[in-house]
């Protein structure tokens, strides 16, 4: 059990590529932190620096308030689970779990009891004598978790552990991971590119883009008040509708590309004429009468998903296609025009130039 602190951590690869530009945050003891972002954003590099597999170019990493920059991975009291499991193919499940403990010169009885315990937790008792090659993907990943659990580490590190599994298994293992975290009460740092995984697992999410931390917060923080256009776009599926325009003279409307005005239910303090991006989530659009309507969506096609319906369409003057998500089953004809509005608290306005949030 420990907290992890990153103090302006930077990573520059020998070829000059800057993977992480100053990550600065603290992970609290027992927290489930998910690092999320598109591929190449530096999230895995950050995790690998915490693990000690990658050198830190600048800044400090502290585990349990001790600087670990130059500490060997084996001595950092961490355990890591890899995307491709990284099990030793020639060893049985039991030997895989025991290997790290043997190297610590732990006595045999203690090793056996820890393996027993981990196997029970992960329902691997029947597979202990098998080789990884005889196990399914889900079982292999459970063995990899078992190998981490037996070490009783301060911090668990997960590098996209579910990415190689099929959708159903992923959901199942996600639930198991959540339960495991609850039971162990240990600090989990989890890297993924899948926002659904991030939303469902995390206590707090750290969202990264191009080596920079974009926002740190609870899943609902990120969903309800994205700090930047990048976060707004990344979290949520289907993605947030974004409308480009310039802020009107009254500071309460946006002039779209073709000159029509999109009224905003709120007034901003930004200078009129500033280029802005107005964002609203598909599920936050609702029917409105013609007088209060912000959007006139012409239906293009409809995705019926059973529990809800996603209507894709377009609006004159708006470059991006728009989407509307309704609960239940709906089937509007293509070409129908829907008048839609949104509420002030669900409107996200970003400055186009910086992507920064304005409201």
């Amino acid at each position, binding site marked *: 059990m420990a907290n992890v602190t990153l103090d302006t951590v930077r990573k520059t690869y020998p070829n000059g590529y800057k993977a992480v530009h100053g990550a600065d945050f603290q992970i609290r003891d027992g927290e489930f932190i998910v690092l999320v972002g598109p591929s190449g954003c530096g999230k895995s590099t950050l995790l690998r620096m915490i693990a000690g597999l990658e050198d830190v170019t600048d800044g400090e990493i502290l585990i349990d308030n001790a600087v670990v920059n130059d500490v060997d*991975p*084996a001595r950092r009291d961490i355990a890591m689970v890899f995307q491709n*499991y990284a099990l*030793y193919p*020639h060893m049985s499940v039991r030997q895989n779990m025991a290997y790290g403990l043997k*190297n610590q010169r732990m006595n045999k009885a203690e090793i056996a009891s820890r393996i027993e315990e981990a196997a029970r937790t992960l329902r691997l008792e029947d597979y202990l004598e098998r080789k990884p090659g005889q196990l399914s993907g889900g079982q292999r990943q459970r063995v990899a978790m078992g190998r981490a659990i037996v070490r009783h580490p301060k911090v668990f590190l997960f590098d996209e552990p579910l990415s190689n599994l099929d959708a159903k298994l992923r959901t199942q293992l996600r639930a198991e991971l959540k339960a495991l975290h609850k039971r162990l009460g240990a600090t989990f740092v989890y890297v993924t590119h899948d926002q659904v995984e991030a939303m469902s697992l995390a206590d707090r999410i750290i969202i990264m883009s191009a080596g920079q931390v974009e926002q740190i917060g609870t899943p609902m923080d990120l969903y309800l008040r994205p700090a930047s256009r990048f976060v707004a776009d990344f979290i949520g599926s289907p993605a947030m509708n974004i409308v480009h325009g310039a802020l009107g003279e009254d500071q309460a409307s946006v002039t779209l590309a073709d000159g029509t005005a999109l009224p905003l239910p709120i007034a901003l303090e930004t200078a009129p004429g500033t280029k802005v991006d107005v964002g609203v989530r598909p599920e936050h659009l609702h029917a409105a009468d013609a007088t209060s309507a912000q959007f006139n969506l012409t239906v293009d096609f409809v995705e019926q998903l059973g529990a809800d319906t996603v209507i894709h369409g377009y609006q004159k003057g708006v470059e991006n296609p728009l989407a509307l998500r309704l609960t239940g089953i709906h089937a509007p004809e293509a070409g129908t025009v829907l008048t839609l509005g949104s509420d002030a608290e669900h409107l996200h306005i970003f400055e186009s130039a910086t992507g920064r949030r304005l409201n």
Partner: protein
Amino acid sequence: MTDVQTTAAPQTVRRKKTIKWRKVGDHAILIAGSLLMLVPVLMVLTTSTFDNVTIHKEGIQFYFGDQFAENYRKAMFEKGGFTKTVDGARMLMNSLILGIGFAVGKIVISMMAAYAIVYFRFRFGTVAFWMIFTTLLLPLEVRILPSYEVVQSLGMLNTYQGLIIPLIASATGTFYFRQFFKSVPEELLEAARIDGAGPFKFFIDILVPLSQTMIAAMFIIMFVFGWNQYLWPTLMTTDEGMFTLVRGIKQIMQVWIGANIPDYGLAMALAIIAMTPPVAIVIFFQSWFVKGLTESDK
């Protein structure tokens, strides 16, 4: 539906026939090929069961004679050569020592070299690898005189070390192991590092067991290669007690003193004996051998 079936039936029959003919053709070629390879060996085997006079008078024999036990006993246990100090058993042992020492030495050296090249970043590592690689182009014969000079000045002529050590640096082996190590996923190394395995432990605990099939394949190739060495042992050994089988066969044929008939039967028997261990090893390790060269799944 019935129409389709009735028209389809004769077609399948016809097709079966053509496949059959093709198979006969394939087999004919394969059988001819194997006969071409096997008949000479068989002739050596049959001829080795005759006495020298018969062979000298009538040439190669195509059936078994009555001297089998006698010829092989002589080949194995009768001291031969000029000095009458070396018998077949001794030569067989020398050959085995050379073959096994050669194979084991090459595997150990090339695995360690490949490990260094793949897993450690050091100055001129790539240069070192390409230098090793280019020596693939140089056959032993090119460097045989300098090598002889070195062995001679180290006083290792007529010793097993002298026979084996100068040959165990292997570009082929290093190259194969390098390719194999490169295919081992990086995460395995990282997992091992987190599990507290240092460079030595990782090599012994993870890489060596993973390379098992590769090692077996290398062992066969290198053993046969070492066993069949002729020029090198010929240069390195002047003491008949150090002769290898391959070298010894030649020696028998050379003993042609006065009106003596060469020991044809003996030489043939010795040739068969010399052939047996490599064949046995190939048959024994065959499945591993194929696996080692084709397996990429880890």
